[in-house]
């Protein structure tokens, strides 16, 4: 669309800007202020300079939490994206079935995150949970409080259960926007199922997929409530992700300075990744407009 250059548009932005600035900029400034001081209360504080940053960057616990975080985010993306595309291709397109499947698939997205944790906590318990009990009956010593492998596996299954619907729905809406004529043309050309997917459906999906991957990366990167409820970060610290380390430090231990420094590092990582994604999306749209 040809947009008009008009700086009066800022007037329309202002109310939003005031609100978001109140919720975003003031707290961010405060975090920066905390990060260079040792704060006991508003009157008792000492300037520490970069000390907290040095400490946080060299903290092995946080470094391993960061690595775990990346490993987790990549794993869930690798599972959820193909699975989500698959589900979207399978979903019926018309009739009451379409609505019913749509609602059922959306269901996990609408459950509060800690309830998701509770659901899986109940589901995987060895004594009262169907999955935990079932696996034990099958002869597998399943125990998420003892075995790090089980805990990891369960958290990944939980995340797949929770978030694949987002990818599936994004792709489903992408698929719905393909005109029927494309499929007819493909039928006339006797294109194989794979060719239809590769040359008709996938190109339409790239746009929504980038959004989906972006959202999924971000949400998996700040995952907190579900593993906290399910495993409490254990066994040991095998499922302690960044958000949880941060929250423990900030709320549990009241270490304002170090947790603020950690927040900023965390934020910078997110900022870089989202900038890369955003630039990619924007360039894709530009190419599309230029090519059309």
């Amino acid at each position, binding site marked *: 669309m040809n947009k008009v250059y008009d700086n009066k548009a800022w007037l329309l932005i202002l109310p939003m800007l005031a609100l978001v600035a109140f919720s975003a900029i003031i707290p961010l400034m405060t975090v920066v202020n905390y990060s260079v001081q040792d704060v006991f209360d508003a009157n008792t504080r000492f300037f520490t*300079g970069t000390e907290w940053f040095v400490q946080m960057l060299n903290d092995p616990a946080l470094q391993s939490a960061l690595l775990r975080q990346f490993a987790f985010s990549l794993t869930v993306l690798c599972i959820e994206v193909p699975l989500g595309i698959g589900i979207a291709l399978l979903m019926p397109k018309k009739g009451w079935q379409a609505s019913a499947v749509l609602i059922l698939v959306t269901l996990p997205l609408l459950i509060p995150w800690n309830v998701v944790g509770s659901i899986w906590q109940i589901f995987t318990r060895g004594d009262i949970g169907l999955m935990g009990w079932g696996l034990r009956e099958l002869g597998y010593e399943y125990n998420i409080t003892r075995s790090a492998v089980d805990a990891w596996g369960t958290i990944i299954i939980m995340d797949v259960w929770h978030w694949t619907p987002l990818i599936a729905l994004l792709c489903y809406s992408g698929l719905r926007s393909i005109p029927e004529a494309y499929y007819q043309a493909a039928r006339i050309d006797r294109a194989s199922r794979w060719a239809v997917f590769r040359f008709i459906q996938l190109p339409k999906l790239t746009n929504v997929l980038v959004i989906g991957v972006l959202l999924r990366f971000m949400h998996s990167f700040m995952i907190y409530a579900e593993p906290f409820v399910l495993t409490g970060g254990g066994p040991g610290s095998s499922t302690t992700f960044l958000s949880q380390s941060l929250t423990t430090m900030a709320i549990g231990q009241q270490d304002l300075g170090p947790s603020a420094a950690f927040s900023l590092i965390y934020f910078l990582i997110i900022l870089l990744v989202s900038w890369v994604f955003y630039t990619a999306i924007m360039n894709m749209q530009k190419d599309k407009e230029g090519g059309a």
Partner: protein
Amino acid sequence: MEWMVWTLPTTVFFSVIAAMLVGMTVWEVVQPTVERKGFLPISTTRGDRLFIGLLSAAYLHLMVVGFTPLSIWWALAGSVLWLLVLIRWG
């Protein structure tokens, strides 16, 4: 404002950022930017280059402070230089 526990360095830091934003806006009004392609792999406007510069400066500071014994002032000097190069030729 007391609860925000301001310190002199952070005040200076945010003032500089604010001044940069105001400066960029004024510059934009006086002489609108043209999107172009420099040594960076994507075509950028002046604002994009400022953002890239600031983000890389932040990472540079973290690297220097966290993993080298160098003083933070070296990082600052390097960042300013990098920012200027980026704005001019990026």
